[in-house]
């Protein structure tokens, strides 16, 4: 059990990686025990657990999730059941409406992406760390330039804007180059 769940949830919304680690170790044993009993022998429940934790974490970060009822544990198990159901093409998910993840992107994997996006992903990974972070904060975390200034210590919002443009330009040039 997690001692202070409200605090943990707050930190998950902030995208705190240590909170992710805490979440991961807090429910691992219970999750594996529960799912090992319910799935076919040989299925990688640890993999299922990792994917479920990531889906929960990304939902906190992207949607600033606030659980209306139930605990993180209930939610995490519900996600696990949903993932399992999806895997076996079950006709209906086991999970109540409240818990359904409405964001298809979270379930997206590299091999399901169109070619152009796969290329974009490849070139994004090749960008320098600072550019990746700059694009990540804007497009993934959805922070405003003002918030990014506060977080990164760059001079001002204009610096952020022009830095991001340069990174985007670099990315587009790389795609253009490898597309030829």
């Amino acid at each position, binding site marked *: 059990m997690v001692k202070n769940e409200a605090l943990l949830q707050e930190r998950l919304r902030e995208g705190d990686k240590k909170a992710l680690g805490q979440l991961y170790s807090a429910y691992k044993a219970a999750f594996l025990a529960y799912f090992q009993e319910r799935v076919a022998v040989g299925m990688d429940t640890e993999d299922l657990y990792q994917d479920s934790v990531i889906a929960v974490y990304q939902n906190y970060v992207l949607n600033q999730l606030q659980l209306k009822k139930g605990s993180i544990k209930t939610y995490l198990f519900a996600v696990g059941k949903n993932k399992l159901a999806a895997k076996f093409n079950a006709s209906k998910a086991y999970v109540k409406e409240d818990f359904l993840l409405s964001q298809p992107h979270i379930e*997206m994997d590299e091999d399901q992406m169109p070619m152009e996006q796969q290329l974009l992903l490849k070139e994004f990974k090749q960008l320098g*760390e600072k550019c990746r972070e700059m694009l990540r904060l804007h*497009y993934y975390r959805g922070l405003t330039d003002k918030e990014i200034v506060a977080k990164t210590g760059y001079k001002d919002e204009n610096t952020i804007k022009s830095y991001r443009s340069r990174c985007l330009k670099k990315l587009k040039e790389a795609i253009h180059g490898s597309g030829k």
Partner: protein
Amino acid sequence: MEAESDIILFRKKVLGQLSNDETKAFEQRFETDMEFQKSYHEYKDLFEVISVAEKQELKNHLKTLSEPSAKKYRYWLPIAATILFLVGAFWMYRFNAQPQGLYETYFDTYPNVIAPSTRGSEPLNVLEKAYRSYDSGAFEAAALEFEKHLENQANSEVSFYHAMALLNSGRLGEAKTILESLPKDDSDFAFTDETQWYLALIYLKLENTEQAKGVLLHLETEGNGFKADEIKSLLSELD
């Protein structure tokens, strides 16, 4: 570049959070305003691609949290326990006399979880090269390349891997100095526990058992689960 209000709209759209009225307005504009359409596609593509990249990175991160304790040791544990039991007294004596022996027992190379090499693609910059060298076990070269990159821009994660490359090259002193300079408790730094864990091992190697114990005890209570089993057993060996 797009107006802030458009970005908010794009954000809501990709997250499926537009209200009915907003959806109508969005669709109308989407059909008539080519610039808006283009900007939205760009936003959506980057959002999706970075989400997948993030997912892959998180998966690597979680794997490092669980691998050593859960899988690798599952079958070896009973055997290891028997051997430990048989030679227990002797080893306890040796461990107490030589805490640096524990360094070799517990040390393993930290995997590259930042920029796993993409096969076939040429490295673009010195940092990419550094991670590639690190992946291939060329730690001396990696250390030089990380150092070169850090001359231009400071970054805690890169510094951590610089220290790891040094550590794997046997340059404990330099690794220790870097690790000690990294943040101890900072939610933006991904490797706080890892940093403390390797510092504890270095302290053991340098026969600074008390300092090692202090770090391990802190990790045991405040840590995020990284090497939790190893921390426990190492602490019991030090008692």
